[in-house]
């Protein structure tokens, strides 16, 4: 009885995650074979990976797209961390007029479906001459994810006891020094968690770069892969699943590796606590 009871959760989890695992299995198998019948490969080939060395059709090199993805995810992560760690500190620690209102507003903004803003954002970007630039998209992505970032960071700041901050002030810190030398090191797990989370989110972003960066020199990996599935301009619509699988694997691999090394930070966002 005991064994069955212990094993049951694993069994349920396995059944539930089976579809996902099958998808990854197909991705892996498909990337290294000319054709697949379901999950059964038809021989082994590396030809699906040609795009690593030569441009695929009239698309830009995948390395350019990879660089763009890295720049977008990295830039967005840095700005998000800077803004949310300062804003969250202020919201957690300082009392000012409209603080509660602001907190509620941030929460509402987080719940707001950002897709409804697409056209408005287009006009804003064009007015700022940031349309079709990486910076523009990174800023839009930052703005849309700031509510989450602020709330996550605020949670971490809230968990630092007032005593510690008071001690820093009495020990000779200015407010800014206390923030930089005592508070920030204490919420480092939160910063790490948010950084990992944000980078993955930025790496996976498809809609914003697809809409606001039409030039192929600005393509990110997600847009690049879409172009493989849809066929590029002037191509006969012949979908090569092997190449899609290979490009997909290329796209997902950094994220998987990243996850592997940083999952313990990521867990803290969901657990939502600072461990002393």
């Amino acid at each position: 009885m005991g064994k069955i009871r212990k094993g049951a959760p694993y069994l349920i989890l396995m059944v539930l995650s089976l579809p996902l695992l099958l998808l990854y299995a197909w991705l892996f198998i498909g990337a290294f074979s000319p054709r697949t019948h379901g999950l059964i490969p038809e021989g082994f080939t590396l030809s699906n990976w040609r795009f690593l060395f030569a441009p695929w059709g009239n698309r830009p090199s995948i390395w350019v797209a990879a660089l763009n993805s890295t720049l977008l995810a990295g830039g967005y992560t840095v700005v998000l961390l800077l803004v949310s760690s300062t804003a969250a500190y202020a919201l957690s620690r300082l009392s000012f007029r409209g603080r509660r209102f602001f907190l509620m507003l941030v929460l509402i903004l987080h719940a707001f479906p950002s897709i409804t803003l697409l056209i408005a954002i287009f006009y804003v970007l064009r007015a700022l001459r940031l349309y079709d630039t990486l910076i523009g998209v990174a800023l839009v992505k930052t703005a849309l994810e700031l509510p989450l970032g602020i709330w996550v960071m605020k949670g971490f700041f809230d968990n630092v006891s007032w005593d510690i901050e008071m001690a820093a002030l009495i020990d000779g810190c200015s407010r800014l020094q206390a923030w930089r030398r005592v508070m920030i090191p204490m919420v480092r797990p939160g910063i790490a968690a948010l950084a990992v989370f944000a980078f993955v989110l930025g790496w996976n972003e498809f809609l914003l770069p697809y809409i606001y960066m039409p030039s192929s020199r600005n393509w990110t990996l997600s847009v690049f892969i879409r172009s493989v599935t849809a066929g590029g301009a002037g191509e006969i619509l012949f979908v090569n699943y092997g190449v899609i699988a290979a490009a997909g694997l290329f796209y997902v691999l950094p994220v998987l590796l990243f996850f592997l090394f940083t999952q313990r930070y990521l867990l803290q966002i969901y657990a939502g606590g600072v461990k002393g």
Partner: protein
Amino acid sequence: MRVSIERLTKRFGKVVAVQDLSLEIMDGEFVALLGPSGCGKTTVLLTVAGIYRPTQGWIRFDGKVVNDLPPRDRNIGMVFQSYALYPHMTVYENIAFPLTLRRMPRAEIHRRVMAAAQLLQIEELLDRRPGQLSGGQQQRVALCRALAKEPDLLLLDEPLSNLDARLRLLARAEIKRLQKELGITTIFVTHDQVEAMTMADRIAVLNQGVLQQFDTPEALYTRPANLFVAEFIGSPPMNFLEGSLTVHGSALRLTGPGWHVTLPEGLRSCAEAIRDRDRLILGVRPEHVRLASPEEGELRAEVYVIEPLGRDVLVNLRVGSLRLRALVPPSFPWKVGDIVSLHFDSAHLYLFDPHTGVLIGRS
């Protein structure tokens, strides 16, 4: 350094945390702020530290008003109840942190950290992080960090309450010795009257933000200003008997439902002076209550609970609806349910006004 708190009021929104408080703390003095939780004692401490700004009134250091001086310019050492050690720094870095912020030369910092660490006997902990220390060690590190600054004023916010009973006893003596040795003016916040009594030169008793009495431990014990102080100081607390004043021949009696006590000579004059007030509260400490066989006295009680304390026995007694406590030698012959008579030491009785709580007189 001399610290003067003058007519200090601190409000948080509509809540009055401290009201019209004045204290004069001498150079090198060890003063305890004593009161139940929420009485405003920590607010006073944080206002002196400069974390809070007074709503009204002044804080003076050596006569100079410091109301607007930021905490970092006050040269204060503070130990928090939670110790507030910086978890991301080693013990050495924790102690050195205030000194680094003053841009002190490295050699001087090292000298001071080592000296302070030696004073508190924590030299072997310097490489550890706060998370690896026991509560007692953390408390020492916190004290060390405060002392390494060579502060003009030491503020201690319940530094002993997170220690276990045995360690607390040790730390109590240790802090008192250090304070006397270094001669630093010290303000100590506590809710434990034993801590305050044993450590402080003078104690300020606070209740609901209002100062009740500011005096030496002996004076608080022998001359409590009001019911609150009388009950708060001394363990177990003082017994109170509320009754009305009646005249029987030449004697004055305090009479309650089912009991009466003849007031001794020493209290008669002050009781007579306020005879029109009719109702009075008689106070007597458990250590000044003697038990005898029931036929010997006028006030009879039933033994209710017996609590042996080792050196003494604390006897809980029932007189009608009243509960009284007596601290008696362990060699006493009664058991639960027995009737005894109570005798109050006529040299240690107090009379309080039941309306204002103020001490009217004592024998």
